[in-house]
């Protein structure tokens, strides 16, 4: 079986800086895949390429066997590809509930309707509330995002994306900036996702990575250094070298 999301021979440069170099990556349905690598390795860029925020210089992206390299960002979302942001991208002046309702409403195609009143979309609001509960945010439902502590905002970041019911979920350092007491909430929410949903997580905390991932890719200087099971990666000398900050002559 081929993957639900496939990246083939992807290249991207910012001027002289080659940020993505011949990257191949396949996520099967139900994957729990971690993408690790030092800061500046090009992990976020890879997500931007997959989701269509950036256009690759070369290479292709397939979503359910379909070439989506030239599809718009919103088109890919409609086809089940969703991501969270490393740095929160929220609707800061709106309430938590509205933040999540916006994405649910978008998914259900309600955001085109400009005559009936938003609050009457009980289907949307009910679903948004369920999501808030799942992330322990129900007491913040009516709080404006700006007034929430950063850790809670981080949960909203994830709730918005879950509101899209993705088939492929790309999480860019979801736990960064979250107090360690709240990290399990995020992981539990991800664990609760269906077995058919493919999840890619970028994460620096190795405990989180090893708890979560069934497979791991290591990205260094824009290229995939190695791939394997968590055990294989843990024993890989090159990976250890990178994580110990030693120079790498590979």
């Amino acid at each position, binding site marked *: 079986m081929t993957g639900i999301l496939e990246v083939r021979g992807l290249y991207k440069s910012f001027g002289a800086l080659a940020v993505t170099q011949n990257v191949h990556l396949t996520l099967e349905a139900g994957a729990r895949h971690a993408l690790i690598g030092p800061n500046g390795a090009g992990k976020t860029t890879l997500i931007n390429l997959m989701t269509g925020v950036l256009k690759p210089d070369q290479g292709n992206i397939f979503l359910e066997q379909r070439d989506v390299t030239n599809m718009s*960002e919103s088109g890919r*979302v409609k086809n089940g590809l969703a991501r969270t942001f490393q740095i929160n991208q929220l*609707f800061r002046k*709106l309430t938590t509930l509205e933040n999540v309702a*916006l994405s649910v409403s978008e998914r259900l195609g309600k*955001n085109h309707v400009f005559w009936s009143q938003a609050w009457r979309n009980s289907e949307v*609001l009910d679903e948004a509330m369920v999501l808030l509960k799942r992330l322990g945010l*129900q007491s913040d439902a*009516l709080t404006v995002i700006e007034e929430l502590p950063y850790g809670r905002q981080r949960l909203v970041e994830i709730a918005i994306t879950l509101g899209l019911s993705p088939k492929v979920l790309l999480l860019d350092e979801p736990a960064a900036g979250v107090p360690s007491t709240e990290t399990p909430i995020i992981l539990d929410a991800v664990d609760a996702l269906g077995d058919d949903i493919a999840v890619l997580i970028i994460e620096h905390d190795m405990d989180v990575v090893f708890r979560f991932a069934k497979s791991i890719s290591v990205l260094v200087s824009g290229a995939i250094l190695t791939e394997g099971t968590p055990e294989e990666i843990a024993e890989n000398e090159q990976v250890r070298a990178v994580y110990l900050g030693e120079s790498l002559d590979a």
Partner: protein
Amino acid sequence: MTTKVYDAENPVVFLRDRTRWHWAEALPWIVAVAIFFLQPITLNLGVQILITIIFALSLDLILGYGGVVTLGHAAYFGAGAYVTGMLSAHLGWNEPISGLLAGATVAGAFGFATGWILLRYHGLALLMLTLALGIMMAELANVTEVWTGGFDGLSGIVIDPIFGIFENDLWRRNYYWYSLIATFFVFLACRRIVNSAFGRSLVGIRENTERMRAIGSPVHLRLVTIYTISAFMAGIAGALFAQVNAYVTLDVLSFARSGTILIVLVLGGTGRLYGAFVGALVYILVEDELAKEYPAYWELGLGFVLVLTALFFRQGLLGALESFVRFCKRLKA
């Protein structure tokens, strides 16, 4: 009034209450009717205020909700004014309501066509392009003198009595009501739109365009849609202007008109609809008073008010009022 505490378990009540009609929303209409009977200002001035409100409301849809800054909105006001005027002057289409709708429809179609291109850009590029659009439209009207009357203006506009009964009398008694009813319908439409899911998605685009894209929102299409609606409403304002004055000059397309409407809206407060009412009322009254007293300096005074608004009342006069009310409530509590 007591502050209601909302239950997070039932947030729908909160969202519903926020969009529900508040008693204070009757105020502008009471004032408008009172102006007719008491006439503290001339009805002619009243009509000007109403037209400005419609124009400012149209701008609020794209600026206050969609977050699109434009310096060329007079293009659509002017399109409505010229189309309605020319239909009458050249084709004898003198029936007012259909004439108004025709002008607005052409303005809306023009908004759709131009918006499709303009809204591919943002920031400074968009600002310059809207500015260019305004200038080009004014120049176009100038060179197509045969139809527009060019620099001399378009005369020969004859508007039939509304429903065959209500004429455009010199005191603007009938046209005051005509404009008021138009304002009311435009406002109702705006209010419905901004409280719809579509309207909320515009706020999403204003607040964070990148995230809206990431949740699958067709941002360009959404903006073009609201831009078209906005242009249609600006066209209504322009058409009314042409009918009231039975005369259209290049002034309807001037950069000054685009700039002024932006000032009016920012002064009143963006993204709250009623900012258009407050801004238009204050601006036109101040302009009228100051221009009478100090014809040479009044714009200086206006500039001063603007500087104050920009520095201290970012949310406009209405925003300042809201903050003040909130402050008083907190004092009481």
